[in-house]
């Protein structure tokens, strides 16, 4: 790494930090339960808008894994999500009516909250439709993983986004609050992911899956990035640069081995494609608050009329983490 480039990245990191500091004024605290947090608690950070239907299962899922405290930023919900979250005993809640896009899709808000509250904690940053799966997650709590990462001097843990979808039309099977969305959207693409190194930030850039296969068939370069680093032993100097795809300092993006070995990694099951997606897509298209001019929702809107089927003959049905590890989507690394 050249000294000049390293200095540039440092400046960039400072700029994101300053931006997060400025954006803190957009956040209004609704409930602050941060005094409950103990020194070694695992924290979860999440931005959401009108996702009330998903929240009950989401909170349960992560409570069971051993998350101790939740930080939510509510972006102008009108479906009762705000009141629902306010009454959860382990949630601290902020709300904002400002632009999601201008906070760089929530990154600025969360960067600020993380800087203020997450220093020294293992920190999970996910969306309400993302469910973390890590090696041995059926028998070991999240703390077993973070203790092991600590003992191995590892500061960040990657979990690739795996798009899950139902068999048949997306709107065929309605989702009800409290249900496991993976029971409906239980299929995924196992082996059509492309990857390339992003040399500036040393992260991998992973694309593919059903969205690339169906929505971005003709322009794969525009397909959404799937590489994510959601679990980080946070330090107040760190910032997320673009969603949870990459961080600064860039050493945190070095979650892959370059000499043939495998590091430990997990998967974020992405339960976006439920019956709720159609309405969501229409709303988001109107608001235009999503990444790259909501290109993804536009691509979907164009195809929604032709009865979109993400499922194909070679789709795999989700069983458990061992299946994902055998397929090579995640790895136990040297954790045994």
């Amino acid at each position, binding site marked *: 790494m050249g000294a000049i480039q390293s200095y540039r990245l440092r400046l960039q990191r400072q700029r994101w930090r300053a931006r997060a500091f400025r954006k803190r004024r957009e956040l209004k605290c609704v409930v602050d339960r941060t005094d409950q947090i103990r020194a070694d608690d695992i924290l979860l950070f999440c931005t959401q808008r009108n996702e009330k239907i998903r929240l009950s299962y989401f909170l349960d899922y992560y409570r069971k894994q051993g998350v101790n405290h939740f930080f939510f930023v509510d972006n102008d919900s009108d479906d009762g999500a705000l009141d629902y979250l306010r009454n959860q005993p382990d949630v601290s809640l902020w709300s904002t009516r400002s632009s999601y896009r201008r906070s760089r899709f929530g990154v600025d808000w969360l960067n600020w909250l993380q800087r203020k509250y997450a220093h020294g904690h293992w920190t999970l940053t996910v969306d309400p439709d993302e469910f973390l799966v890590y090696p041995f997650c059926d028998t070991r709590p999240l703390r077993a993983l973070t203790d092991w990462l600590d003992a191995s001097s590892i500061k960040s843990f990657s979990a690739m986004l795996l798009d899950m979808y139902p068999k048949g039309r997306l709107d065929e099977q309605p989702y009800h609050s409290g249900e496991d969305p993976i029971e409906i959207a239980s299929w995924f693409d196992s*082996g059509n992911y492309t*990857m390339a190194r992003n040399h500036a930030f040393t992260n991998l850039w992973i694309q593919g899956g059903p969205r690339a*296969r169906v929505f971005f068939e003709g322009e794969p370069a525009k397909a959404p990035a799937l590489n994510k680093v959601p679990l980080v032993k946070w330090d107040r100097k760190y910032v997320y640069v673009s969603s949870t795809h990459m961080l600064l300092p860039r050493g945190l993006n070095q979650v892959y*081995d370059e000499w043939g070995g495998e590091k430990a990694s997990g998967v974020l099951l992405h339960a976006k494609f439920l019956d709720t997606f159609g309405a969501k897509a229409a709303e988001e298209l109107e608001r235009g608050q999503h990444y790259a001019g909501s290109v993804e929702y536009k691509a979907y809107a164009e195809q929604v009329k032709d009865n979109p089927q993400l499922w194909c003959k070679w789709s795999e049905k989700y069983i458990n983490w061992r299946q994902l590890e055998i397929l090579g989507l995640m790895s136990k690394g040297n954790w045994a």
Partner: protein
Amino acid sequence: MTASMGVAMLVHTALGRAEQVARHWAAADVPVVIHVDRNVPKKTYDGFVAALADVPNVLFSKRYRCEWGTWGIVAASQATSELMLASFPDVRHVYLASGSCLPLRPVHELIDYLAERPRTDFIESATTADVPWTVGGLDEERFTMHFPFSWKRHRYLFDKTVSIQRAIKLKRRMPHGLVPHMGSQWWCLTRQTLSAVLQDPERPKYDRYFRHVWIPDESYFQTLSRLYSTNVESRSLTLSKFDFQGKPHIFYDDHLQLLRRSDCFVARKIWPYADRLYEAFLTDAAGAMKKTEPNPGKIDRIFAKAVERRTRGRSGLYMQSRFPNEDWENGVTAAEYSMFQGFSELFENFEPWLHNATGARVHGHLFAPDRVHFAEGQTTLNGALSDNAIQRDYNPETFLTNLIWNTRGERQCFQFGPHDTQEINWRIAKDPNAQISVITGAWAVPLFRSNMDFTDIRRIAATLQKIESEHMDVLRSPYTKSRVRIWSMADFIEAPMEPLQGILDEIGQARIRRLSEAPKMVDLHGFGQFLQNLKNQGMHPYLMGDFPVERGPVSSTDVPRKPYLVK
């Protein structure tokens, strides 16, 4: 009356668990001497001592500051051992354990096991030349250098002092009569050996020396016990596995059955929150006496595999946490595959024929410009790999490695040619898993049989010849690692059975031992004249080899149908 075995326990975290284990030992009349790391705050320490106040035969030694890789741990072991030997005269064996060790078998089984071997010292101890598990490349040097800086806290200074000492060849001298030995720090020594080590008149000299050896807890007792012991059994009774960074593997609840079946006496290191393990092993009833020797084979294999996965990985897999640099892949692709160039042009039914003869999956032109021609005309393949050409060409290398990874266990064959996208050529050429068979110039056959204007044919032929010629340069380069076989078309049709047999043999899963039927060759009547016409137009087709003008009918109509026999 105490048991004939005592436990010296070194504790630094998870004091609650240490207390549980100490009570477990003490309940079987095993005396316990505990050393608590000096770094533990006094208040916590006092609480810990008070919690164990009701247990008889538990003592606390003088406290030292224990940092990994430094003398403190040896000092602590010495202090606890001395206190043990002085306070409990019945003790014959002293077992060194840590706070995160967990006894797996009933305590009396261990006591009996040791009582049957009253003179044996269980201490893993090997000469430095023979130990592969040193981390950081310091084996011999840990005895001959000075280590004034902490490896954990001042890594830079630590590395610097090592390299300076290497440069100026500074060496410490070993005290006379010592042969450096290393091994697991968890031992079980007899009173005789241990007291000899601790009461040696030379001990101040040895201590002075080992104080500046790196990681002395793995060498102090290992070296000195060799001086006095009459019967060293070089293995540790504590099951303790280390990963490639030299840190111990940790046991969790899901290892319960594995640990039970290991028949080891003590295991480390246990995750402090592994409630089921502690509950299971600390409440085990005194079952039927097992006289079995410890047998950690299965656990060994699991952890060895974990290390292998971390250092070598799965060949041919590219994923979020394995993305090897070029030439460091340890296998570019996951399995062997075959690429054929010119065969489906020359033979009418090559693909079904090859499938029948080998059982392999035979694709068409995977890298064709219009779309991916998967076998049987499928539009997606294993792993939901799309047949869209744009998607494939977005990253053709990943397309290939994905294809081979997704179809592990089934041999893949595909066609290639100068029409196809050529971006993948180097990748395949450098892949030892690739078996490439080329009939050069066969691309001219479809042109010959086409119904195009001759000027177009001439132009296309010139382009294809140039592309194929460049590809052949790649395949013949010294960097090529794949198995390459190239025939000119003229050579090939001279005797097609022999190369075909060779290819089938190489694929190796041939359904038929000997090739009885060759695929049907296209009618080449007039092909020589066709080439001559190209020449007459000033385009020189050379990749096919020499075709006499009148040659065509001889070789094409009469493909041998009789069984091919080699004596």
